[in-house]
């Protein structure tokens, strides 16, 4: 079951991260390039697990709410949110929650007519075999590329953006929640580093700001951007030093970054994220 958990976690995180890589808008290449630069949620999730052993199941979006999301934009946003919740539940090996979130994700995916790309039986089958995890992750990414291509072919690439935004907001919500319970320097810095993601998401949303149901999300993200504009990520100059280890090239850089973020900034971000997320899951 543990292996299944890891695989499902990876599956759900890749669902989110893959949504970041291929969507195209009116300026397809620009959008694709911007989205590609958003940090992988896999890395953030590993950090959360490292820092906190407490599972906040009651703070996640209730999977029973899935029936409430009848509009496409709500389905897409909450597909992103549930995907993050699924990954989070897996991280803490909460098996019943995992199944519930898997069902919610499948339901919304079917509702968006992309359910054919989610082969859950295959995922479970692979989990029970001796197949290695990296190969499964790779296959999942390829499936997600098909989803994004499918959405693009149907001129519904804006759904990819909403999935991305929903998943990112939920990841931020969980990160700030963990920080409230377990203040930690690394997590504080990680919240500050999301400045890069906020800027990139904002740029992408701007491509779609005139589309129906985007106005509110764009305005909310702008508010968040405003808070992040006060946070700075400073990087010292440095050089890469090359060594060779077991035939592999290893580059050690001495350039170091630091984030200037205050407790007040963290409070504002936490409050804003909670508000935006509240609107999305309503």
């Amino acid at each position, binding site marked *: 079951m543990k292996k299944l958990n890891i695989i499902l976690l990876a599956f759900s995180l890749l669902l989110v*991260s893959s949504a970041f*890589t291929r969507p195209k808008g009116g300026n397809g290449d620009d959008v694709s*390039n*911007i989205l*590609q*630069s*958003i*940090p*992988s949620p*896999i*890395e953030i999730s*590993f*950090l959360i697990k*490292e820092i906190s052993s407490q599972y906040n199941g009651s703070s996640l979006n209730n999977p029973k709410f899935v029936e409430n999301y009848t509009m496409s934009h709500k389905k897409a946003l909450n597909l992103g949110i549930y995907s993050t919740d699924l990954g989070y539940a897996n991280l803490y090996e909460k098996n019943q929650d995992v199944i519930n979130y898997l069902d919610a994700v499948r339901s919304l995916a079917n509702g968006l007519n992309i359910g054919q790309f989610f082969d859950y039986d295959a995922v479970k089958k692979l989990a029970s075999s001796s197949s290695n*995890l*990296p*190969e499964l*992750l*790779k296959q999942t*990414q*390829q499936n997600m590329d098909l989803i994004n291509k499918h959405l693009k072919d149907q001129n519904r690439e804006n759904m990819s953006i909403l999935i991305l935004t929903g998943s990112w907001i939920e990841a931020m919500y969980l990160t700030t929640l963990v920080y409230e319970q377990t203040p930690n320097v*690394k997590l504080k*810095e*990680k919240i500050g*580093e999301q400045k*890069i*993601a906020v800027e990139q998401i904002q740029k992408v949303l701007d491509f779609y700001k005139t589309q129906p149901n985007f106005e509110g999300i764009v305005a909310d993200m702008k508010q968040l951007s405003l808070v992040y504009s006060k946070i700075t*990520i400073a*990087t*010292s100059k*440095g050089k*890469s030093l*090359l060594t060779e*280890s077991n035939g*592999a*090239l*290893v*580059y*050690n*850089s*001495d*350039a*170091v*970054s630091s*984030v200037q973020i205050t407790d007040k900034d963290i409070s504002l971000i936490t409050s804003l994220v909670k508000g935006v997320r509240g609107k999305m899951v309503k």
Partner: protein
Amino acid sequence: MKNLKVSIFFLLFLMVGTSVSFAQDCDSELYSNISLKKLNDGYTFIKSFKIDGKGGQRKDIEYTCVFSKDTKYRIIMQSKDDAATGIVATLFDAKRVELATSFQANKFYEGWIYVCKATGIYYLRFSFKDSNSYCGGAVLGFKR
């Protein structure tokens, strides 16, 4: 004059045909899968990259990434030519300063490990150097 027109027509036809043929010939996923099998030592897969030079029409392919501090990133490539022959992976920081390259001492390495201490935007460029196939795939993994 007529012969010249016919020659140009055939030349154009061959160019188009060749280009389509090259585009179809590069199965990047196959080479990414081979790369993935070499991504070991506790690295977790993040992403795969298509390295398709369209038969030489594209000399390099660039991707934008965000790397996080206190994290090791490993890139592994596989060229259609053989191992990493003909493909060079180069990493640049946001100011386009070169940080890592897989071509050292006139030798193609299959990738590199970058020990990152600064969170930010980085550029990952795959370039073709004396390549026959202009085709390959790569994977990126991370380890904290």
